[in-house]
């Protein structure tokens, strides 16, 4: 698992629906285009929600890491 540089980290663990997507949508706007946000989640649904969200909102998931019951998404702001 490589260390990934990121501009912002979001803790999205154990949040009610649809907060993970709401918070990442807000969070991504707080970094500059080209920068990366790290989002940590425990939701199984996030594994489908985040890629679908990235596709819809036009951002890019550059890496997905899974460890100790959590998933870490590294998302690059593209626009």
């Amino acid at each position: 698992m490589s260390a990934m540089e990121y501009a912002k980290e979001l803790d999205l663990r154990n949040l009610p629906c649809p907060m993970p997507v709401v918070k990442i949508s807000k969070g991504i706007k707080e970094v500059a285009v080209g920068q990366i946000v790290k989002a940590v989640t425990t939701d199984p649904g996030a594994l489908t929600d985040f890629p679908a969200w990235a596709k819809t909102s036009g951002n890019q998931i550059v890496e997905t890491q899974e460890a100790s019951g959590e998933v870490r998404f590294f998302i690059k702001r593209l626009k």
Partner: protein
Amino acid sequence: MEASLRDELVRLFDTKLSRQMLLNLETCSRCGLCTPACHAYASMPLPKYAPAFRAEVVRRIYKRYFTALGRFAPVLGEAKPLTDAALEELREAAYSCTGCRRCMVYCPFGIDTQQIMSIAKLLLIGAEAAPEILSLLADVSISKGESIETFKEGFLQGIKRLETQVVARWKVEAGTTPIPTEVEGADMLYVALAGAHSIIPAAVVFNAARENWTLSFFEAVNFGAFVGDPGKTQLILDRIVREALRLGVKEVCICECGTAVRVAKQLSGTQPFRVVSLTEVHARYLREGRIRVKKLPGSHTYHDPCQIARNGGVYDEPRAILGRIVEDFREMSPDPKYNWCCGGGGGLVAMGEDTLDFRMRSSRVKADQIRESRADVVVTACENCHTQLENINAHYGLGKEVKFLSSLLADALVAP
């Protein structure tokens, strides 16, 4: 506002003019009986929060473009053209209404404010002035439905990780999958939300009842309904209908999400499967003796989610469950039909922090009702209500515990 946009919005308005809608728009006598029915008005007595006032914001535009009186003598009905200022009024009216339909219980005619607000929401979509986040959430759901194969693998991995937690609470026989997916010919398709909390307790109870079930790839919540887009609402629901038909299930069970339950029950059309809420399924297990439970200590009260109870008719089932699993149950409202809305419906909770201030100010009466119940635990069966009740609990310092009914039932399970 440009003339072309105005014409387009009037056309959109026209698409909403069903027989029911015309009745809703043309019957109000502005008697004001609905005024105290709204939790927003009861918490903050400003005329703009009176249901008839909200409806009038839409009605004024209706009169201007669709009625003789509004065209020829606009002053009599205060008919107003569609302008940017009118859009702003529509936005405030629609997104301060949770669609709880409590005002319908007061109205002598039965005017449906939620239906009228659906026009306001559609016009806002047409003018690209709908809350961005709700549109985005709806689009994410649709995108998932369109390319499920791309996302399937990730979902299955996520589900696998939950299985140990399910088994830790209820052992399944060797060879049985704790969270089954893609089971063709299963009796029941369970449609959950993204969060583990809407999957684990439900799975535990299904396994305890030896249900032949399978978990849906999709989340139950319908953001199309929140943003008020009939087309997207149907697309999001169709993903689930298609999955249910493909697997050939007899029942589609919707998780604890009020909007999801109401949309799936009332918009699925005639299908070879039945749509039921998780609460109804749980009540059935208890009635048929398929699960055994113990009584949990502590005083509990139940918050009826508007879309499940007043607008869906599920009143007796949660009470039947609570009667079996808690020692001390206290009603929150003498008549559940009159239960105050939590203040989080209609997409307000999904809009997150942006609406928090309004949600807290408009739910003062709910906070009072919870306080007066004198129960330690507030139980509910809706994700939105749960989030809002947690917020109320913190904001008003109520010191209660907020729990999902399904989670409480899973806690009360005992081995046969």
